[in-house]
């Protein structure tokens, strides 16, 4: 593992940690491979809410990483 190689991963890691808690939870669970229904069950929210939060989290993450859509 070199500094250059892990820099991108670390940037993502940092950006995710800078997300507000509600969005961070949904994003990390998604990245861990959980489905909408599983995330909804874990967090005790509706599936539509999971979708809305994930969409917003993606946008915030994109902004934090400087990714232009």
């Amino acid at each position, binding site marked *: 593992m070199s*500094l250059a190689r*892990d820099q991108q991963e670390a940037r993502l890691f940092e950006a995710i940690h800078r997300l507000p808690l509600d969005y961070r939870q949904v994003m990390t669970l998604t990245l861990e491979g959980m489905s909408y229904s599983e995330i909804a069950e874990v967090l005790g929210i509706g599936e539509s809410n999971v979708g809305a939060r994930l969409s917003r989290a993606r946008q915030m993450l994109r902004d934090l990483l400087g990714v232009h859509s």
Partner: protein
Amino acid sequence: MTDDELEIWRRQWRGQPAVPIDLIRKVERQTIYMRFGYLALFFPGSVGVGAVVLAVLMPSLPTMVLAVGVWAFLIIIALMQIKASKSLWAPTTESTAAYVDLSVRRCRAQLKAVRLYYLVAPLLTIFIMAVQYWFLASYDVLKTSRDIAWMVGAWVYASAIMAFVGLLMRRWGKKVRVELSYLENLQRRLGED
């Protein structure tokens, strides 16, 4: 953002190794020591305040030279400390390699601080001794051998303190060198992985 990008994020997220907690704790401990390093400036700072007080109470060329000289040393030391610790407060990224890299750079900065002490402390001590002699001679108080003995005693005392701190710095430098050697080996191993 496309789902391909989400997939890339997923792979990056899973590939991110956790930074060992003892390494994080070690770096956090070093950060606290660095803050204490700034507090350590209090001692030379109090010498500077004393020099200014002396210049105000007993205005003369030697006391003014002493105040200006001591503050010049203090400003140089403070600026060097700020410069040395500029990029050493936090790792560049949240990764093991970055934490190790930060620790290595901190060790090198500490060794620089030890070398700086060996250079600055004798210069500052000699400067203060010389101005003290100038000050006492200008007031014509070095008349008897007893007066001279007091002055020499003060010089010996100041030199002994400087030498004692120098020994402590030497011991600290040795510890830092051992730590640096370990960290550089670790850094090489991480680079090979």
